[in-house]
C-alpha cells in the first residue's frame, strides 16, 4: 500500500510534471515530423505515382505490425536505417536529415493511423 507522505507527494508531483513536459515535447516533435513527412515522404508514400518502378507502401500502422513492408523487423533502428540508407528504389536521405529531424520524423510515423 502506498502511504501519502510529503516525500511521496513531491515525487508524484515531479513525475506528473515530467509526464506533462514529456508529452508536450513528444507532441512538438511529432508536429515537426509531420512537416518533414509532408515535405519528404508524402509525395511517394501517399501517391499514386504511376511511373515509379513500384508504388511505395503506405506507412499507417508502421510500428503496429511485427514487420515493416520490406519484411524487416518493425523497429525504430530499422526504420531509421531505411530512411538514411534508402531501400531498393527508395532514395537515401543520407546527409539530408539531421539526427533531430530523424527523431521527429519517426515520432510522427508512430502516430500515423
Amino acid at each position, binding site marked *: 500500500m502506498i502511504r501519502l507522505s510529503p516525500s511521496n507527494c513531491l515525487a508524484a508531483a515531479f513525475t506528473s510534471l515530467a509526464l506533462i513536459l514529456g508529452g508536450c515535447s513528444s507532441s512538438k516533435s511529432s508536429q515537426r515530423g509531420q512537416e518533414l513527412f509532408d515535405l519528404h515522404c508524402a509525395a511517394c508514400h501517399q501517391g499514386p505515382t*504511376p511511373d515509379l518502378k513500384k508504388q511505395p507502401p503506405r506507412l499507417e500502422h508502421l510500428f503496429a505490425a511485427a514487420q515493416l513492408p520490406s519484411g524487416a523487423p518493425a523497429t525504430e533502428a530499422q526504420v531509421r536505417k531505411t530512411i538514411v540508407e534508402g531501400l531498393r528504389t527508395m532514395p537515401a536521405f543520407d546527409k539530408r536529415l539531421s539526427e533531430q529531424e530523424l527523431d521527429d520524423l519517426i515520432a510522427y510515423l508512430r502516430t500515423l493511423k
Partner: protein
Amino acid sequence: MNPLMTTRSTQILQTVLAIAVGIAIVPATACTHTKKYPLRGLVLEKNVSTSEITVKHEDIPGFMLAMTMPYKVKDAAVIAELQPGDVIAADVVTANNGNDYWLEDVRITDESARKITKPVAVHRLDVGAQVPGIPLTNQDGTSFRLGDFKGKALLVTFIYTRCPMPTFCPRLSGQFAKIHGDLSKTPDDLAKTHLVTISFDPKYDTPPVLRKYGLAYLDDNSAGFSHWDFASTNPSDLRKLADAFGLEYFEEDNQISHTMDIVLISPAGKIVKYWATEWTTAELEDALREQAKAGKTGQQPQAQKRAG
C-alpha cells in the same frame, strides 16, 4: 503600375471572383484531378521560347523541396511581364498524378530587385550533331563513351540516386525500367538498343552506389547491365556533357537542383531528339524502336525527320 501587382481592392475583387469561379468549377476540377500547391520564390531566368521561368523557391510541402527549377507558365502575357529578380507567389498546378505541372495565378510580390535581361537561350548540341565523346564510368567501374554504341539506338538520361522527387529521377528510372523490360522480351530489340542513365552526383554516386541503384531497377538481374548502363563522370566532364545536352544543375545542401532531359541517339551516333518537359514512356519506347529499326534497314526514321 505593374499589372501583376495586386492592390487591396483588386485582391478583394479577386477573392470574390475566385470563390464564385471556384464554386462553378469544382465538378470540372474533380474530374481532371488537378492539385494546387502554393509556391513562393525568386525568378532567376525566363525563357520565352519554351514559356518557362526558372524559380528558386521555398519548400512546397507535399510536392517539392526548396530548390531551383524551371516551371511552365501557360499565359504568354505573364511570361512577358516577369523578369529575373522578381519575387513571386503562385500556384503550382499538377495533373496526371503530378507528372504534368505548371504555374498559375502568378503574382509579383516584390519587383525591387528585377533586372531586365535578354531571354535565356539553351545552347545545346543541335539535332544531327555527333554525340560528345566524354569518358564515363559505369556501375562496374568500366570506362566507356556514348559514341561506343554505334549500330544501336541509344536513349540517355540524367538522374541522381538520392533524388526524392517522384516526378523527377525516380520517374525517369521507372520509365527506363519499363522500356528495358519491354525490349527484353525480344532479343532483336535488346540487341539493337541501349539505355544509359548518367548521374548528376559523381561525389556520392560511385560505381557501387550506382550498381545497387541499378539492380533495384533491374529486379536484381545483373545481366540487365549489358543493356542499361548507370554511369558517372568527373565534375568537370559532367559539366561539359550537361552543357552539350542543354541541362542545368547545381548542388545546394546535399540536394541537386536540375532540369530534366532525355536524348535519343541514332545508331550512327548522332543526336536525334530531345525531350525536356513532356513525354510518355510509350513515346520514348516507340522512338527508340524506330531508330533501332532504321539502323538495321538504313532508312531515315520518322523521329529524325520530325526533329529539329
